[in-house]
């Protein structure tokens, strides 16, 4: 729903230049999330 409305906003206002910027930031966030350690990591780290 949110994404649909946001896409409509971009189309109406012709803010297409925002798309790559948002995509890049999303990718970076995704990369941080994907490579983050498990919840157990801090406890495991204290073992060695």
């Amino acid at each position: 729903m949110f994404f649909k409305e946001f896409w409509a906003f971009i189309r109406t206002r012709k803010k297409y230049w925002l798309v790559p910027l948002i995509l890049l930031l999303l990718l970076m966030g995704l990369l941080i999330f994907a490579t983050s350690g498990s919840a157990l990591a801090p406890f495991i780290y204290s073992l060695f």
Partner: protein
Amino acid sequence: MNSDQSQTKPVSKKKQWLFRCIAAYLPLLFIVLLEIILRVAGYGHSMQLFITDTDNEEYLVMNRFASERFFSNPENATRGNAERFKKEKTPGTFRVFVLGESTTIGYPYMHNGSFHRLLQYRLLHEYPSLNTEIINVSLTAVNSYTVKEFAKEVAVYSPDVVMIYSGHNEYYGACGVGSTSRTAGSAFMINLMIHLRELRVMQLISNGIHSLKRHDAKNDEIDVTLMERMAKEQQIPYQSPLYKKGIEQFNRNMGEACEVLSKKNIPVIIGTLVSNEKDLAPFINASGEGSANDAFKKGNEAHQHGDYSKAKKYYRLAKELDLLRFRAPDTLNSIIQELPVKYAGVYVADAEKIFQQHSPYGVIGNETLLEHVHPNLTGYALLCEAFYVALKQHQLLKASPSQTFTLDNLFAAMPVTKVDSIKGAYEIAALKMRWPFNQPKQQLQVNTFEERLASDMLTGKVTWNQTLDTLLPYYEQKNDYVNALKVAETAMLEYPNDATFYVFAGKYSQLLSKTSQAALYLHKAFQLQPSGELAKELTNMHLQSDEPELALYYLNYNISHSLSKKALMNIQQVIQQVCSLKKAFAKDASKNSGSQIAMLYRQLGYETVAKKYQ
């Protein structure tokens, strides 16, 4: 206004595409601009391995933020040692970099318990005139990703040897396949992230995410049940896809590290990995026949019946089948053994073999290890022996030793204070009370002065340096020069460029009648900071030890730096006579040169040495 213009003046198709391209590059420009702004504003930090030492600009030291590249949450990033080395390598320096994990840094003893400090101590005794720099850049909780990245960076600083001991953290260490399940062990993603974390923009995003997480987290009251539940998600069965990914990860990263160093003709020594076999039951067991516990039970039975080779086989199988991979699989040792075949200048330090030789019936257990992988002080001396043997065997140290300092000499000397040793025991006791050991809580014995200091150090009430400052006068007051010497040697190894601690160690060695050791330490102090007083002391000591040539060397220093040259030159003449007479005496002891030497020594006031020649 702009829209009006665009309506009245239509843009050509060519220009439209150009503008689209510029628009597409705008985010990149935005990121670059933000990066520049953040750097200028001083946000975040560099994560390169070495930075200029703030105390002395001629030196480099390990960057305390270097580890943050490997940890998704900067708060979990571990810190390494701060061992300084000269930016410009001085000629005649033997420079070694040490890479690895907690065992490599000397956990739980840290200062001086580690194998690299024991090696430094050994080389100091064997090559007193050699400037040895052994710089340990190991970190706890890291694995081959860190070794690979650090190997690339240390290669620039002209090392004579790089030593590596790593592998136990391959699965659960930072970036390991067991701790980054969301990427399914993708090397591309992890390597990309390691490099992107250098960017201040990434640091900004990451700090933002983690500060938000911090508000939500209530991890402080995490209970054992939750830990066990989470641990279940971390189980890695033998030969499972994740298990194999861990093996591939180690093979690839260690291969890359060796390749980088080998291409630059830098010799590498890699240690085989040592695990507790007989005294550590599997952490997590799959039920039924053929499980880890079943193998461990069979190992125990065989051990009880005296069938040690069978016992060893089952203990190793139990380790392989353990679902919690805190001990490196045997395959990693096979990979290590193959590295010298693939890369020139790579050698193996067979630590596992040396541990087996020093374990009852060749089965590794609590005699040399504290728990699953970390050695006790005997174990660290054995680890030092493994690297020392490899260093000698492959003639990687070209200088000739002035004496041999054996493993037995090392066992006898062990430059580790009682407090460090006790603190290590406390750390392990505390560790074993936690998951996954879950041993019953026990009250630590805190009675003696050393135990109280160790306890204060553990709780952070005093620092390690403050402990040394307290210990030295304490032992001096008690005339306990054996322990005072250990404190001085500990400080000497921690600050190898500070002459003061060599002087202290020399003084206590003299008080313990260890004359040659005292001369060695004072010689080192003289090398670092020559002084008339030290030269006088060394002249005296070498005459007492019947080493007139060496005495002459220090006397000459005092002649060239003293105002009362005449008196000293008279002594110089006498010593020169002793030197030439000793040569004649060595050729033919029957001539009367012996009595002449005795007479000259007596003239100088060295009655004990004089008696030797009568």
